[in-house]
């Protein structure tokens, strides 16, 4: 370390490695259904896409977690998105491409992507 700037660069570089290790109660949550039905319908690539997007876009206070089967197996992969202090929105038959739009529109933009939501999707 030859300067404070170099130290700051190291700090920023390694911050993501410990970013998830705290109380995540107030984080935005992306919950991907990963029961056997979900995994069979392709939830794993969807899940990994969300993880990738959160890392690439360096979104802080957004966590990606899994849940079990919600009992609506034909609609899998099911993804629930909940911003702090708002009702959760359930997206159905999510694909990695849709994941990108959900992150852009809902997580970053703050507006649910209505066309993918369970309430309005066909």
């Amino acid at each position, binding site marked *: *370390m*030859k*300067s*404070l700037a170099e*130290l700051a660069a*190291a*700090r920023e*570089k*390694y*911050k993501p*490695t*410990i970013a*998830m*290790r*705290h*109380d*995540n*109660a107030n*984080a935005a949550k992306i919950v*991907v*259904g*990963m*029961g*056997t039905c979900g*995994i069979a319908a392709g939830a794993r690539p969807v*899940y*990994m896409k969300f*993880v*990738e997007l959160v*890392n690439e876009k360096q979104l802080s206070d957004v*966590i*990606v*977690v*899994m*849940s*079990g089967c919600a009992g609506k197996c034909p609609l899998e992969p099911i993804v629930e998105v909940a911003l702090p202090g708002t009702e959760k929105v359930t997206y159905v038959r999510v694909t990695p491409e849709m994941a990108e739009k959900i992150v852009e529109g809902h997580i970053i933009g703050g507006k649910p992507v209505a066309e993918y939501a369970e309430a309005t999707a066909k």
Partner: protein
Amino acid sequence: MDYVRSQVLVCGGTGCTSSGSEKIITALHEELEAVGLEKEVQVVRTGCFGLCALGPIMIVYPEGAFYSMVKPEDMKEIVDEHLLKGRVVTRLLYQETVNDDGTIKNLNHTNFYGKQHRVALRNCGVIDPENINEYFATGGYEALGRVVTTMTADEVIDIMLKSGLRGRGGAGFPTGMKWKFAKASENDVKYVCCNADEGDPGAFMDRSVLEGDPNVVLEAMAIAGYAIGAHQGYIYVRAEYPIAIHRLEIALKQARESGVIGKNIFGSGFDFDIELRLGSGAFVCGEETALMTSIEGHRGEPRPRPPFPAVKGLFAKPTILNNVETLANIPQIILKGADWFASMGTEKSKGTKVFALVGKITNTGLVEIPMGTTLREIVEDIGGGVPHGKHFKAAQTGGPSGGCIPASLIDTPIDYDNLIRIGAMMGSGGLIVMDEDTCMVDIAKFFLEFTVDESCGKCTPCRIGTRRLLEMLTKVTEGKATMEDLDKMEELCLQIKANSLCALGQTAPNPVLSTLRYFRDEYIAHVVDKTYPAGVCKKLLSYSIIADKCKGCTACARVCPVGAIAGAVKTAHVIDTAKCIKCGACMEKCKFGAIVKK
């Protein structure tokens, strides 16, 4: 690129390592590989989480699922269910974190963690202590960087003085004052020493900091070096702490490679290097002058002060010696300011204190609380109370140099001055909880036996005085003492305190004095009535068989190691008290509750 989607933090402190966390880590790696998750799920070995009673402990992030008392064979279920399918394995969770509806409660809302405030332990159980990059990520070495590039030595000392930080090793001397004296001593060569010779029975605060966050100690030592004008530091650590030593060595190597320790730190022209010195576990070497004598390569014996180490210390050069926990506070004080630190705690005791909570307590472990927290909050709320429905009798703080706090003073706010006032002392932070089954005379004897063993023998009051005191105490536990002996004991205690060379002897009588002060009735019971309220002192005990309850099953006679029990089958048995060695084996064996001790 592969991204880590989940991190599993497994405690690698000494407590959890001895309850098998290494095997947990191995099993976890195997199971993750079996289902192909080894790239998305990262396993991190951290330092102590604090809740040692429930080890081995692991936390799965981002959910924050806190699994306790896990076994290697549980790893398959956790990997298959939780990490693969997202179903948290509720039965293995720390039950305090499970809400009634089965959801996970935040750790900070549990009794154990809720009242704690972690400053010195902030990275313990959070980062991988063997990876300096994780320390950088938490803002590590920022304080050192700022100090050497933007501050003068006087400014650093000024912050330390204003913060009100006092030494966490026991005596509570203001840290800034120590630094100021050392800076004022003119000399080309000065030294910074870290006292990691934690020797109190039942204490493991410093070990946990070294194991969980070794870099914070290195950073703080370099800051101290800059403040007083030293370029060399020594960490004196017990050889009995192999994990701490291993991690310190790794941290030191990585710090040198990163250039945060060594020549020209942050391009400021300031040089500072650190070496480890291993102690062989002599208790007296925790005393500052004995510690320095030991680093110099001599037998660890104290020497008279003055001259104080700040004037003439290690190798006869000006030296400061700070305890591990004291150092662990320093980078945070530099970054957040003296006012932030001084806003915590009581008027004369600022900040937080780490305690090793042990003895008759549900949540055995490591806790950090703001100064001024009452003993009741520590024992009942954080500690979860005394187990098995027993009652709290006393707490012992300060180890062999400290004293007992009786139940009547349980609402005392804990800080340096309050503890001294009631005849105990802060000490390094061992907190031993005792229930109604603890004999206070026996406790005093235990600590005194320890100091008799550990007295270095250099000065007479300590070497001979503690031995005579132990002999008198032994007479008490054997029922052979007189009331005169109690007075003589008290007199001798005061003599030892007044005349010993170093803190070991000066504080050695404290356990006796404080139990005499608060539990004199127990001493009197031993002396006058020849009874033993808690039923611990063996010489005073006798076992007997209640003839009416005895079925003559012979179980006791068979288990007695000295053949002291006689009697025919199906008739009441009798114990020969002359032969009996009071081991209690018969009482444990008897199914009919026919054997009693009194």
